């Protein structure tokens, strides 16, 4: 009976979120299309400075950039609804194919970065909450601030200098064996340590004030069991719901990390698409990344809605 009532509400919720996602994707596509063209023209980067107007016009025609922007947009939309996001100007391959060629390279570092961020951020958040206002709380706060404030490119370069150049322990970058993963994963993960730490801390503080925690203590459970088993388990619910947002952050944050470490993932592909004014590739990468982030967020939200009825009924 309970299940029978829940499903229609869930279906409505999912349908609503999917509709929102489609609208958002349309907006993203339009913005990327028009903003991209404001930044210049790939032909300017492909031709030498003494190219004749004749050669320029010919190349523009060959690349299909000779129509008005509106015409190009209509062609783009027409093709996009059929799943064709165009050919990369620079790479001369379907942009979708280029994206999926590189996606696995990014996906192999994101879980590790997420794991690292959680492994550092969650214990730090717990320690900070336990020592609220104390030295450890401030120290953990400082780590959190550092994680957010340190630009990834600076951290990456610093790590390369220390661990590759000075100590010679790790390679400077590029894909390779397990050792090649360490520095990119740390650089990417550090950005999220602060997020995990702060959410864990506030969630822990809230949970530690709960009646069931007081009851557990009255029952004589050890402090370790109360904190790490009862408090943390409940505090992790909001942490896990933000997981989707953090994965999104990692996907977008990978642009800098992958560029510094010469990692051929979708972050670097985005950078290359911008640098070369490769409009079809840029559009495809942004749209597909948006879909990826939407799907992850939708998945997390559905899970959350499933767990917490207040969400789907709101």
């Amino acid at each position, binding site marked *: 009976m309970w299940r029978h009532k829940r499903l229609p509400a869930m279906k409505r919720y999912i349908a609503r979120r999917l509709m929102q996602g489609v609208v958002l994707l349309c907006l993203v596509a339009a913005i990327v299309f028009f903003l991209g063209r404001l930044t210049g023209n790939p032909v300017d980067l492909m031709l030498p400075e003494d190219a004749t107007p004749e050669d320029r016009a010919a190349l523009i025609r060959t690349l299909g950039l000779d129509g008005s922007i509106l015409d190009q947009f209509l062609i783009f939309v027409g093709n996009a609804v059929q799943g064709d996001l165009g050919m990369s100007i620079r790479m001369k391959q379907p942009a979708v194919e280029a994206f999926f060629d590189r996606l696995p390279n990014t996906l192999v570092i994101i879980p590790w970065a997420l794991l690292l961020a959680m492994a550092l951020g969650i214990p730090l958040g717990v320690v900070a909450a336990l020592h609220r206002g104390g030295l450890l709380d401030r120290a953990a706060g400082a780590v959190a601030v550092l994680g957010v404030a340190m630009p990834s490119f600076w951290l990456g370069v610093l790590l390369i200098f220390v661990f590759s150049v000075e100590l010679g322990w790790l390679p*400077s970058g590029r*894909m390779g064996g397990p050792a090649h993963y360490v520095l990119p994963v740390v650089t990417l993960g550090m950005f999220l340590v602060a997020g995990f730490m702060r959410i864990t801390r506030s969630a822990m503080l809230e949970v530690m004030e709960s009646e069931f925690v007081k009851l557990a203590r009255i029952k004589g459970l050890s402090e370790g069991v109360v904190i790490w088993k009862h408090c943390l388990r409940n505090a992790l619910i909001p942490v896990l719901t933000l997981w989707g947002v953090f994965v999104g952050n990692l996907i977008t944050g990978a642009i800098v990390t992958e560029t510094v470490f010469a990692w051929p993932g979708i972050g670097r592909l985005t950078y290359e698409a911008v640098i070369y004014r490769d409009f079809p590739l840029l559009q495809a990468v942004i749209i597909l990344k948006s879909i990826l982030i939407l799907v992850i967020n939708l998945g997390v939200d559905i899970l959350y809605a499933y767990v917490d009825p207040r969400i789907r009924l709101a």
Partner: protein
Amino acid sequence: MSQRMLARAMTLAAGLFVAVALPLGAQDQKGTLVFAVETLGAQTLDPILEGRPGNAVYQAVMYDSLVGFNVEKGGLGPGVAERWELAPDGMAWTFYLRPSQKFHNGDPLTAHDVKFSLERQMGPGSLAAAAATMRRTIKSIEVIDDLTVKVHTTSPQIGLPAGLSRAVAPEGAIMPKAYIEKVGEEEFRRKPVGSGPWKFVRNVPGDRIEFAAVSTPHWRGTPHFKELHILLVPEESTRVSMVRTGEAAIASIGPEAMLSASRAGLEVLSVPATMQAVFQFWGTYKPELKDSPIAKVRVRQALSLAIDRKQLIEHLMNGKARLPHPFAAFAYTDYYSADRWERWAAEAYRYDPVLAKKILAEEGYPNGFELKFANTALPGTQFMVDIGTAIADMWTKIGVKVTLKHYEWGSFAPLERGDQAPLIGWASMYRTAGRPDAQWRYNGAFSPDSTQRLLGDKDTCLETCQEFVKTYRALLDERDPNKRTVLTDRMVELVANSWTVVPLIEGMGYYAINTKKVGRFTAIAGRHELGDVFERIPRPEQVPWKK
């Protein structure tokens, strides 16, 4: 003979057989040469889909060009064609190919491949920068015999060999006709075959391209390393770190990184005369600028005199640049009186702020004037922004009030086209790449029907502009080398004395090198990229290629 002696004799014989049977190069090829570079362009091994920089970095490695380099002096030299000659009526060029050239799949390289390659560059699917020009200027290509090919042109094309030389453009790359026709274009792009000293092994998009050395002697030089890996590493500090750790032997760097690379114990290789940084004035001939200070030649000259080029070289280029020749001219420029112009430039491009102020006063601007200056840098020359900022500062010292606006190249480039309205009356930074045939660059900048048209346009072509057009046309038709030199000098003179485009420094290409990984070598003057140099780079224990 004992069994032992027989065994020894057989071993010796086998060794001798291997030594004789293996080509000389293969015995001496060891290790992997790793080169880290900031961009691999389109990262395609199909020459019709790549521009000049990408071609020069990695396609040059495996493809030969119809016309090659003069590796000693810079500029044009023999390539796939040993020599070439112009028909008496000026309407055709005949190229004579080297005998016994082979592609990596064993096919002989013949005139049929040359014809096929040039036609492919001109074809509808080609993204070659000069495709349209080639279609207009090349009437037909005739195979005379296996080693002779004749290119008929629609009008006299004195510069055609330069346009088909890798010293200038990528369109001369020779591709294997039979192979492409057999496997198709898509398969050719996956498994490309060339005739250069390195053959293709693997292309990992966004990451690297790997090549293996050919084992037979090659006219460009037989590689000393067994493999060549070209890595794409966009971040400069990472490239330098990779050279320091030995993960790469050579990395391209900018002038900003030179000092830190030297301090870190790396050798810095400077390739001379790869570019000129210039500033230029837009639309000075336009009627609406009649009363503008920058419409006056002497004012433009005064702005040049206010620039301390030695300071730019010392502080922004770490001493690794030099005083320039006139616009787009270098010591290796063809048909050009380099010594004469070097002396001229030393005097004309001196720093003399007192004279600059005096000229401004004489021209009616004792308190200076307002100048709008667009600061920009072409891709790969980010240091030009610093140069632009520095010269703007130098101008303020003679009373010029500079409004400085920074443009990312992608936003600047569209401004120079169409009516150029946003740039008229402005000065801007610009650069010109090193290439031996100055006339094409001059045409692109100064002809009234060119994109930039800095001396005049179709509506307003004043005396200097008309004289330029006359000289340029005469130069295109002139076959006598001495007369060509006279005409080139005249063209250079017209532009130099117009002070419309003013060279600031002659820049170099820079590389950080780990000498434990490679031996000493020098690059080709004017050729920033190393695509035609890798085969000559020795291993650390070997004799330097050139001091």
